[in-house]
């Protein structure tokens, strides 16, 4: 792709070549300009959020926007914790996200391994049935799941956000693809050494697919940390809210107050995701491409 953009066409007169080159350079600059405009549109809301989170209540919602705040008002950050139980909500988000990440890695790696490396009657049928459930949108199941959760006595508990999120058809597919990529020789070597099936899985195969675990962990972390729909329906006690619900509440409380407080909350909610993103960006990208290229 790269090399082909350079005009390496058959020889022509040098004047035509120079014209080509000029047009090529002009095109490149134009593309760069378009891309930069898009980049600014993407970054501006982040910059505006952080800078406005530091403005005083008096000027919080006034124009012109101030991109660089010379005398930052940090009290907005403290106000978040006074208006809503934000500390508890951060904790809730962490508990739910971590539990679902660990749980999905567990269920998906077991199931993915079974489909990739174990032989049993009905394997293909089961695999395609599970893949078919990927088509089912969350909205089509949310009412019955709410009924089930309520009958189990789990409504309005953090369990209601964790347990239904543990089985994963996509994660199973993802792990299976990676397990298929591991040569079978490893297994045979381990069996000769007298290892049983579970330790072949846990000691031999699992360490070989750590990148896949990282990919799944990134996707699940991102999805769960930002989930809004499920908590909105399953949870009604503000002490059990996750961050997105808390922010929505905060926006309501601040309808006539300072939007800087709300934006301080948004800024804080971004910190964990940004940290995870810095370390795991490549896994996130790989995960999205896995869905697209091999799916």
């Amino acid at each position, binding site marked *: *792709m*790269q090399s*082909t*953009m350079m005009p390496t*066409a058959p020889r022509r007169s040098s004047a035509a070549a120079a014209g080509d080159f000029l047009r090529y350079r002009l095109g*490149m600059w134009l*593309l760069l300009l*378009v891309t930069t405009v*898009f*980049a600014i*549109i*993407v*970054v501006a*809301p*982040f910059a*505006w959020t952080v800078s406005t989170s530091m403005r005083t209540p008096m000027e919080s*919602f006034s124009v*012109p*926007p101030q991109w660089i705040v010379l005398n930052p008002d940090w009290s907005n950050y403290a106000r978040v914790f006074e208006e809503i139980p934000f500390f508890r909500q951060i904790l809730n988000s962490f508990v739910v996200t971590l539990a679902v990440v660990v749980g999905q890695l567990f*269920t*998906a790696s*077991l*199931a993915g*391994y*079974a489909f990739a490396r174990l*032989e*049993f009657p009905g394997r293909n049928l*089961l695999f395609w049935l599970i893949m078919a*459930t990927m*088509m*089912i*949108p969350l*909205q*089509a*199941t949310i*009412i*019955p799941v*709410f*009924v*089930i959760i309520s009958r189990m006595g789990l409504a309005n508990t953090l369990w209601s956000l964790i347990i*239904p999120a543990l*089985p994963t058809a996509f994660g199973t597919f993802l792990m299976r693809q990676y397990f298929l990529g591991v040569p079978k020789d490893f297994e045979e070597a381990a*069996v000769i050494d007298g290892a049983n*099936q579970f330790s072949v899985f846990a000691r031999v195969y699992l360490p070989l697919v750590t990148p896949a675990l990282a990919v799944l962990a990134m996707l699940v972390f*991102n999805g769960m940390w*930002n989930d*809004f*729909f499920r908590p909105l*329906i399953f949870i009604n006690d503000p002490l059990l809210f996750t*961050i997105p*619900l808390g922010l*929505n509440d905060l*926006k309501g409380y601040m309808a006539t107050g300072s939007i800087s407080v709300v934006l301080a909350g*948004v800024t804080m*909610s971004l910190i964990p995701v*940004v940290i995870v993103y810095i370390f795991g960006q490549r896994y996130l*990208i790989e995960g999205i*491409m896995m*869905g697209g*290229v091999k799916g």
Partner: protein
Amino acid sequence: MSSVASTNKHVGQSKSRSRNPYRLMTENTLSGMARRKALMGYLFLFPTILGILVFTAGPVLFSFVLSLFRWNVFSPPEWIGFVSYQRMVTDSRALTGFWNSFIFVVFAVSLQVLLGLVLAMILQSHMATWLRYTYRTTFLLPMLMSGAATAIVLGYMLHKEFGAVNYYLGRIGIPPIPWLTQPTWAMVSVIMSYLWLSTGFAMILFIGGLTNISNEILDAADVDGARGLTRFWNITLPLVSPTLLFAAVTGVIGGLQVFNLPYIMTRGGPGDSTRTAVMVMYESAFKNMEIGYGSTIAVVLFLVILAVTAGQFGLSKRWVFYQ
């Protein structure tokens, strides 16, 4: 496969030499191992299958059953047959919801796919590596923001009097636009916000698709002198068409489920102008406590998603090209 073959071999041998105790033992351990392996397979699948039955596959059927009852959670459910479906086709609010979802998906998904492809092609073109990585990271940033946070932030920025967007538009002489307070503009705002949030995702899909194009084909195109638009239409587009299909299918599935953005930015308003099908479902089931009617909307939404996806795959035979 190899273990099955070897088991058979040993079974055959053991018939002829069944008296040899050593052979017998080998046979037992091998078939035993195959059986243990199968058992392990079911054991490993157990959590996933149980979970999917209880929380995904079962509930889809349960949804349909619920849609045939009238139930407000507090009193026992009452069988009413297909009454809810009849009610839905005359309920202007539900119909508006489906119509809004349709309009949203048409514009949001086509623009998302178009922008994603254009950005991916720009990033995959001749560009310094550091620049490419900087842009790629930048365009992925919105994925970090929750739908809720995006709705809050962009909602503030699109405020008619105090929003940053109208301020800068005013600077270049454009009068204030009622982004969230006029029906058509409100839909435009929700679509724009969705694009801000999700175009990076489509872009990554296309970068994956473009990287997969074999270099030989591109080199051949070069030798033949194909460039510019010709090259795009005849070479690049057919080769990324499988990714295009995937992006369109996942885009439609995701777009038909949109909820957070209109719910927080506009509360479905002004009027019902941004009330999507999922919002109507949510309000029926969890605000008005009409579990049966909410389930009806959920079932219809699911069938619409299935039909559209099947249609996309059916039509894809005409335009998707597999290398």
